[in-house]
């Protein structure tokens, strides 16, 4: 007959297990701290070459592309908004992703914006962004939206209106291109940069992007543009005030008291506008809106 009672060894294993497992947690934390102080966390990619990775992937490059894309998004998400954040690895990560999967359109779109955005929001390298988008155009000749990306890049970040218009025209020739491309090309030819075009283009990006980072970024730009428009309007009213009273208003309340505006307008982030000397309108220092035009004299 078998003994039904578990052996001594079994009991020992059962009792010891929870204690041993519990001991692992603090031990690991200590180890992590120690290793962190030992090595500088240098930002480096072990394998830099997209081509090499493609070979190593033994035909499974498509999945590896998705993995690198995910890494790129996480890399960006960890750093955006942090003071003094650098985005050195963003370009290589996107480069690898698009080498492994040349049809990964979302990667080109991401790079077209965030490689070009100035630091704290992006890598500040519109040249790298342009190179990436051109790669996207070459790999996806039927994709009109790549041309739209190139156009926008030239328009907003590089301020090269000639190239921007050319890109929009090229894109408009494609089968599925949206009808506004041609008109946009003409407008840019004529006027260069205009708030109307900018608002339209950023709205397009906001509506057609699915990556939350892209949407958030587009929204911020739209808010900034709206604030700039408000500010222009307010400055006109401040000039009116000056005509009437001989000096500029010191705050929005002055305008209300003068009956020029019915209430105190707030910027899209919910903060009142400030008046500086000479009737210039600026953002409240606490406002998160990023507008270079409207930055207050006092640095935040």
């Amino acid at each position, binding site marked *: 007959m078998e003994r039904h009672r578990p052996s001594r060894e079994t009991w020992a294993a059962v009792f010891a297990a929870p204690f041993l497992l519990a001991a692992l947690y603090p031990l690991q934390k200590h180890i992590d701290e120690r290793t962190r102080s030992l090595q500088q966390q240098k930002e480096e990619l072990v394998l830099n070459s997209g081509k090499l990775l493609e070979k190593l992937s033994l035909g499974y*490059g498509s999945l590896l592309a*998705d993995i690198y894309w995910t890494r790129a998004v996480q890399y960006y998400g960890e750093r955006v908004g942090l003071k003094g954040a650098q985005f050195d690895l963003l370009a290589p990560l996107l480069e690898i992703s698009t080498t492994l999967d040349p049809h990964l359109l979302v990667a080109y779109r991401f790079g077209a914006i965030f490689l070009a955005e100035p630091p704290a929001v992006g890598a500040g390298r519109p040249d790298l962004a342009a190179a990436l988008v051109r790669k996207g155009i070459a790999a996806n000749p039927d994709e009109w939206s790549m041309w739209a990306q190139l156009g926008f890049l030239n328009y907003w970040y590089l301020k090269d209106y000639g190239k921007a218009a050319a890109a929009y025209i090229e894109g408009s020739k494609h089968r599925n291109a949206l009808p506004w491309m041609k008109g946009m090309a003409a407008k840019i030819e004529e006027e260069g940069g205009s708030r109307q075009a900018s608002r339209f283009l950023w709205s397009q990006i906001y509506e057609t992007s699915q990556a939350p980072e892209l949407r958030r970024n587009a929204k911020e730009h739209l808010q900034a543009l709206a604030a700039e428009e408000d500010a222009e309007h307010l400055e006109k009213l401040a000039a009116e005030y000056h005509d009437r009273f001989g000096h500029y208003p010191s705050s929005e309340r002055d305008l209300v008291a003068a009956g020029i505006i019915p209430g105190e307008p707030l910027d899209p982030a919910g903060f009142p506008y400030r008046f500086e000397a000479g009737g210039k309108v600026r953002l409240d220092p606490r406002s998160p809106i990023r507008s270079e035009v409207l930055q207050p004299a006092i640095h935040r």
Partner: protein
Amino acid sequence: MHTWVVAINTFREAVRDRVLYNLIFFSLLMMGAAVLVGGISIGIEHLVIVNLGLTAISIFGIVMAVFIGVGLVYKEIDKRTLYALLARPIRRWEFLTGKYAGLLLTLAVNTALMTVGLAMALLYVSHGFLRADFSILVAIYFILLELALITALALLFSCFCSPMISTILTIGLYIAGVFSSDIRSFGALTGSSLAGGITSALYYVLPNFHNFNVIAAAAHGEAIPAALIVQNTLYAMAYIALVLFPAAAIFSHRDLK
């Protein structure tokens, strides 16, 4: 007829060896991915699920084809289960093709079930199928062709090598077949016409597994040309025959001590 009897028994052996349990792991993987992918990559859920699913189907299948394939004949000789069987009115080549067909059947069933799992994950993530998803089925068909070819190679080696050597040879040939076009370009780069000639010949002799990989295209919903489907099928059939005939010849003349 006898081939079929052996095939069914080979399938039964695989099932009883709990080979199909890998499906549990696969379905956990797919379920986890389907649930998590939305949080990680918005907008490309469909792409990621198809990439992940097809890659997993391919890898699981290759592992199964190699590890069971190298033992198909070797095990029967080593354990001498073969002796009583061959005393029956069955020819040696019938036995061999029966083992082959049995493993293919196992792989086909396994892949079919995985396809269902992938379909369910896709439904969850995309709430429906597009016509473009037909490419996924083509990709899976190509994976099956690949597996049939790998199995044939493993079977060939199983006739005269130990499982360890067979594994190394089979996997080696697979990798060479994936890189065969690179081998040829490399030979052309060296500038030596001898190297170029050898690598070029190698290109046509090696089993070109890269022909069968359309995972990226299926993931992006691109259509796969019907001509390619026909050509790959013929290529696979020709190469498999090229492998199985010598296997049958070797096995038919082998002394079973």
